[in-house]
């Protein structure tokens, strides 16, 4: 009895040891000139093909639009790219490195950050702390739990550096005045901006914006277009955005892809794609 027990225990320990010592497989890489490249990306829920055969190729410093009628699968594509869902078909590469199968936080560390269709800030934290949550996982602000607990010099150094960087980011978005307010007390337009600031704080290479102009008035929308261009220039950023406002899309995006019922209708420059007969049919019927 005791012998059997120790034997089982030994087996379990061996299994754990084997799991610990196993090195992670090197991730597949490809030669790619694009920041983001998806290869017949798709996902099936049960029998429903929510998204299939999406091939995006996004160049550096591009502002790329993803549009389509409601339920076309735009947000699902974002969820695939950020690791919320695991693709059932195809794969995707960031700068030539395959990211499929990584956890959400790992994909974020690799350089994809996003905002949400319905704002998801940390409501009961101050504005500046929201941004600091985005900042704190980067290697340059590394500080171990031990150092934090015993208030070693590095703790104060990283805290100061993070606060400084957070203030810089907030200044760009005109939120510096409100930095000590709770995030839930900001007006809607500013909450949207704070979400972008928080995503940028994670130092991404690719920024995904899910309906950034939703619920904004024309002035705020125009202001947002300038902000997104500013982000591209100042942070050397590549942006992929979902939007329903076609004026916003045609005014801002270099190229777009139109989705309908989970498949790609067409892609190309904003003017070409929006004048495509299939796109007009999908939006306003025959």
């Amino acid at each position, binding site marked *: 009895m005791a012998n059997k027990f120790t034997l089982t225990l030994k087996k379990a320990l061996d299994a754990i040891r084997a799991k610990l010592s196993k090195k992670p497989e090197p991730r597949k890489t490809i030669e790619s000139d694009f920041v983001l490249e998806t290869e017949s990306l798709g996902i099936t829920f049960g029998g429903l093909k929510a998204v299939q055969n999406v091939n995006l190729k996004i160049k550096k410093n591009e502002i790329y639009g993803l549009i389509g009628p409601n339920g076309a699968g735009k947000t699902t594509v974002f969820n695939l790219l950020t690791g919320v869902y695991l693709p059932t078909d195809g794969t995707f590469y960031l700068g030539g490195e395959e990211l499929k199968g990584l956890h959400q936080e790992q994909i974020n560390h690799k350089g994809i950050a996003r905002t949400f269709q319905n704002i998801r800030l940390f409501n*009961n934290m101050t504005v500046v*702390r929201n941004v600091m949550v985005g900042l704190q996982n980067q290697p340059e602000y590394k500080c171990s739990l031990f150092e934090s607990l015993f208030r070693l010099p590095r703790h104060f150094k990283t805290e100061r550096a993070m606060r400084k960087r957070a203030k810089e980011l907030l200044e760009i978005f005109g939120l510096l005045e409100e930095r000590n307010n709770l995030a839930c007390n900001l007006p809607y337009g500013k909450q949207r901006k704070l979400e972008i600031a928080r*995503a940028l704080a994670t130092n991404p290479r690719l920024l995904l914006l899910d309906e950034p102009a939703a619920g904004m008035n024309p002035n705020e929308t125009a202001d947002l277009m300038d902000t997104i261009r500013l982000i591209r220039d100042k942070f050397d950023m590549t942006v992929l955005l979902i939007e329903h406002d076609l004026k916003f899309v045609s005014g801002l995006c270099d190229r777009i892809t139109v989705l309908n019922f989970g498949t790609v209708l067409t892609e190309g420059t904003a003017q070409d794609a929006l004048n495509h007969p299939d796109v007009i049919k999908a939006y306003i019927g025959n």
Partner: protein
Amino acid sequence: MDFLITLVNGLSLGGIYAMIALGYTMVYGIAKMLNFAHGDIIMVGGYTILLFLPINPVLAIVAAIVFCVIVGIVVEKCAYKPLRGSSPLAVLITAIGVSTLLQSLAQVLFGSAPKQQMVDLGALKIGELSIGYSTIITLVCSIAVMVALNLFVKYTKTGRAMVAVSEDKGAAQLMGINVNFIIMITFAIGSALAALAGLFYFLKIQTMTTTFGALPGIKAFTAAVIGGIGSIPGAMVGGLLLGVIECIAQSIPALSPYTDAIEFSILIIILLVKPTGLLGKKRREKV
């Protein structure tokens, strides 16, 4: 004068409840689950202390904390992590299962007979007053632990990440926070607090059984709900309040048989008046 002693005793007992309640409330706030096996972590701590006490008291305390942290993390990894994202009811039943498992395991290892161990630390005498040193130590330690925990949550990166995860797990993950690690840390802190609570509760009742953690566990859960579950200051206030009420009720001969009834009635009254607990936040859905 008698009232002062009752108050000190109450605060000391309340400190124990508060430490346990913190474990319930932090796990609820971050993993959104009720960990009903938390009371049995106290029992694990108690037995570890009993085992190591003949060797060295300090070693016993350290061993209890370390062992409880290990048990807490193992339980989380083996029982709760595979169920993440499944229905809350499944997790709740699993927690009750873990609780039974730990109790039965203790029964196999230590037998079902209660074990007694007298530990007398003496008493502080000021004139007429006499307060046990163990009571004072409990009170001081529990306050120190609560202050330290508050500082930890407020001023460290891990603490900030914990607040972020409790606000919105999904968004925190997409901002690069390793949610699994944060949940593990939460269980570790909760279990360490449970070990300390086990030590102080043992000093108080000096008898060890396999259901040692059940009563303080359920009282602390009540305290966490009174204070507003999910709120760290709420657990502290709720714990201290419940401890003081218990000791006052016990010191009045007419009321002492009804101590538990009084405590749970207060829970019901508070929930009727303020359903989110004393310091719980109202959640209003914005449309």
